[in-house]
């Protein structure tokens, strides 16, 4: 790591032992770096306070008021001693119950900790939530704060470092303690016996009081906190957890229903599923024991192991190499990956995390976990699948004829944007209930336990029910559901939604650009350096009715933007266009030097807006036709798959006649446009 990375890692508290050692070596070798580190820490602390939320402010206020109200000293002592007693009891129960030996705290320390507190302190009472209590020791710090010395020099009070803390709290987190659910919050201490449940997807982080051991628990999950201190132990009953452990005297232990992990130092990822447990070791070495046969194996860095009812416990190398996208056996390439996405060959238990750019080979399957996870993959002919959350896609090609696309959707949903397929080789998509045959179109397919639903946006597809081989044709704006014993008929989409066909193959280009159409992806690959103009447009036929209200959508990948920063040539951007009888509507992002960047309907309205020079953006333009020639224009732009609520920009515009063409625009940047569609919202009565 460079000095800058080391300094930032240190300030963020993210340096591991090796990083810390490297930083120390740098500081020793370059004393001038100490001043830099001090300056950086000063600004770091100020920014943390200035820009942080008001939790810390409130903690200060609450702690001051509680001290000034004069009651908390005694109650705090009582609470503290109660907590210590409770922890001792829980620990004792844990000792009796746990299979593995748990190092009990020395008895004399218990006696010391439970000894009645000394008389009232001379010193002014300090905060109830002492900062170093958060970092290290509630009990010890509190006693110090009270000016009370309850322990012998060198001795450590029980509970001082045996708890864990919630460093962050994800959605749906709740804590079960002593028979009741407690509200959870950041900095809350976890005590032995606590059960933390995460009902929703999201992350909750846990730290330990005595060292930088960190757990990142991903919901949905259930974690049972057994104990902290020198012999840390948890039970991961469900979900997955990233675990980072600095060097321990006693190994960190994590149990699951199928296995037990012991880790003295390292970074691992532990998954606890209903029928298996999976361990991936990123750093260090771990012992992994199957509960089925009590067999233990050592798992080294870059290896993984699976334990389960029907799985043999062996360590295998993590597949960190990705085949070349144009290598033999490659059927598709992952383009965008969001959330928990995995590739596997035989069983979901035997999975490896997926990354953008990864090639998918024949026979490989794709798994997404969590409702917000998603992945986009492209076949070589630019047919695109957008695979949604909690989905399993088993196959991507036909086993017998690899030139035919055959997708097996085991569960979940996907949207397909299918390029024109060779004659006689219609793309097939199969679920448990139905089969879809398509030569080129756009649709969404969702497989549930009892039924499969097909929704067609553009073109038409053949939809066959597996049970009785009944086939129907589903056209644009229609959907159908295949389920045993239910009628199989196409029905119009709710709200009368339908999509216009966009004739991408016959687009008319203008300006300084190089446009190509590959399947349903449109690319503009020239970064114009012209001082004047620099924009380029492709217009394609897409005809609406006279008063149709429309919604245009497109996904834009910025491949390269102009490096110029001069005012006259610095502006770059991309946009959507809708051409009507005598005028057109354009919605675009125009990125210029600082302070000049806007998201706009050019000539009508604009809002300041700046984004990165690379990445994927989604644009949406709504044209709502009103009475007469009036139309309400609305637009939004965003990154990621979570569309923001509401519109970012809105205005009224005079429009006459039907829409005749739709277009894509670039200015001084190269972009790839995909998922370009025009939805008809409704028709005004004439």
């Amino acid at each position, binding site marked *: 790591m460079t000095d800058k990375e080391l300094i930032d890692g240190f300030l963020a508290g993210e340096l591991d032992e090796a990083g810390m050692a490297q930083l120390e070596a740098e500081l020793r070798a370059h004393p001038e770096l100490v001043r830099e580190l001090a300056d*950086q820490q*000063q*600004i770091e602390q100020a920014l943390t306070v200035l820009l942080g939320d008001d939790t810390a402010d409130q903690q200060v206020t609450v702690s001051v008021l509680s001290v000034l109200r004069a009651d908390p000293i005694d109650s705090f002592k009582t609470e503290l001693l109660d907590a210590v007693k409770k922890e001792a009891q829980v620990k004792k129960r844990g000792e009796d119950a746990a299979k593995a030996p748990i190092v009990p705290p020395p008895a004399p320390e218990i006696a010391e900790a439970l000894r009645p507190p000394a008389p009232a302190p001379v010193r002014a009472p300090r905060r109830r939530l002492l*900062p170093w209590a958060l970092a290290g020791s509630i009990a010890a710090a509190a006693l110090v704060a009270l000016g009370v010395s309850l322990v012998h020099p060198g001795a450590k009070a029980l509970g001082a470092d045996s708890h864990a803390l919630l460093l962050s709290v994800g959605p749906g987190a709740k804590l079960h303690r002593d028979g009741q659910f407690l509200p959870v919050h950041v900095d809350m201490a976890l005590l032995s016996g606590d059960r933390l449940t995460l009902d929703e997807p999201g992350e909750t982080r846990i730290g330990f009081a005595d060292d930088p051991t960190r757990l990142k628990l991903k919901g949905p999950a259930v974690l049972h906190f057994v104990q902290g201190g020198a012999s840390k132990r948890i039970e991961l009953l469900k979900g997955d957890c990233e675990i980072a452990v600095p060097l321990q005297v006693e190994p960190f232990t994590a149990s699951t229903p199928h296995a037990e992990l012991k880790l003295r130092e390292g970074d691992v990822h532990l998954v606890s599923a209903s029928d298996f447990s999976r361990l991936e070791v990123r750093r260090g070495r771990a012992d992994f024991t199957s509960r089925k046969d009590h067999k233990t194996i050592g798992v080294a860095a870059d290896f993984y192991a699976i334990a389960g009812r029907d799985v043999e416990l062996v360590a295998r190398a993590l597949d960190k190499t990705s085949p070349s996208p144009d290598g033999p056996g490659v059927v598709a390439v992952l383009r965008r990956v969001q959330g928990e996405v995995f590739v596997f060959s035989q069983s979901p238990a035997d999975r490896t995390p997926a990354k953008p750019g990864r090639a998918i080979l024949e026979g490989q399957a794709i798994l997404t976990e969590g409702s917000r996870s998603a992945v986009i993959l492209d076949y070589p002919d630019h047919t695109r699948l957008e695979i949604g959350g909690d989905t399993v896609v088993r196959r991507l090609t036909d086993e017998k004829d690899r030139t035919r696309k055959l997708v097996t959707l085991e569960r979940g949903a996907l949207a397909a944007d299918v390029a024109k397929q060779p004659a006689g080789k219609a793309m097939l998509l199969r679920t448990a209930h139905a089969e879809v045959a398509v030569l080129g179109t756009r649709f969404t397919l969702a497989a549930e336990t009892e039924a499969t639903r097909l929704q067609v946006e553009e073109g038409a597809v053949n939809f066959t029910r597996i049970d009785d081989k009944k086939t129907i044709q589903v056209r644009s704006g229609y959907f159908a559901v295949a389920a045993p014993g239910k009628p199989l008929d196409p029905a119009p989409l709710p709200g009368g939604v339908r999509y216009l066909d966009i004739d991408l193959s016959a687009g008319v280009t203008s300006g300084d650009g190089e446009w190509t159409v590959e399947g349903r992806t449109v690319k503009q690959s020239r970064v114009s350096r012209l001082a004047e103009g620099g924009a380029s447009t492709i217009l394609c036929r897409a005809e609406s009715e006279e008063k149709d209200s429309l919604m245009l959508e497109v996904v834009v990948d910025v491949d390269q933007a102009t490096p110029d920063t001069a005012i006259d040539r610095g502006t770059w951007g991309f946009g959507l266009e809708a051409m009507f009888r005598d005028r057109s509507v354009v919605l675009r992002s125009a990125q210029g030097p600082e302070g000049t960047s806007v998201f706009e309907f050019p000539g009508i309205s604009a809002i300041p807006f700046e984004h*990165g020079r690379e990445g994927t953006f989604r644009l949406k333009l709504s044209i709502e036709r009103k009475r007469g020639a009036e139309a309400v224009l609305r637009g939004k732009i965003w990154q990621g798959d979570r569309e923001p609520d509401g519109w970012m920009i809105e205005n009224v515009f005079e429009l006459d006649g039907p829409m005749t063409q739709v277009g894509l625009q670039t200015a001084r940047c190269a972009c790839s446009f995909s998922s370009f569609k025009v939805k008809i919202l409704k028709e005004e009565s004439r």
Partner: protein
Amino acid sequence: MSEGERKGRPMDEQSLIQKVQEGNLEAFGSLMDIHVRRLRAVIALNAPVPHLIDEIAHETYVFAYNHIQDFQRGTSFFAWLKSIAWNLLRAEIQRFSREQANQLKYAEKRVFDVAPGRPLEHSAKELDGLEKCLERVPPRLKQLIQMRYHLSFSTEEIADRVDQSAAWVRTTLCRLRRQLKDCVQDKMATEKA
């Protein structure tokens, strides 16, 4: 302004001080709310270890309440708080260096050793400068700052969201803090001149 609005308006600082001097503890809560963020920020610019920031803020308020009768109404309450905080911080640094500095890791110890020892009045001006300098940070970089300091994202989380490497995020944040520090120093120098 309507009566309702008048009723809903927070009391001004001097009225709150008067109420506190009359023994109203709740008014002291409101008084704290006015200054707590800036007081913590000023302390943050001078505290050699982050642990001391909230500790000193806490003790400053406790001291201020216990000595509120000494405060002269009509003068700046924040300036009074700063002077209390400065004295407490100085004493705490001495105590800390005696009792706890030897528990620090090497890097923390070195930072502690070179910690500034200037009056907090100086830091208050630095804080003003920092706020002005922050306004000049380009929006793209402001996004990074927001993710790090407001949303408390880890470096990896930020890297994921901006589609860059963790090394890029760390380096950029480091450069950004350096630029902010230089900007603050320039402002201080200009003001002095």
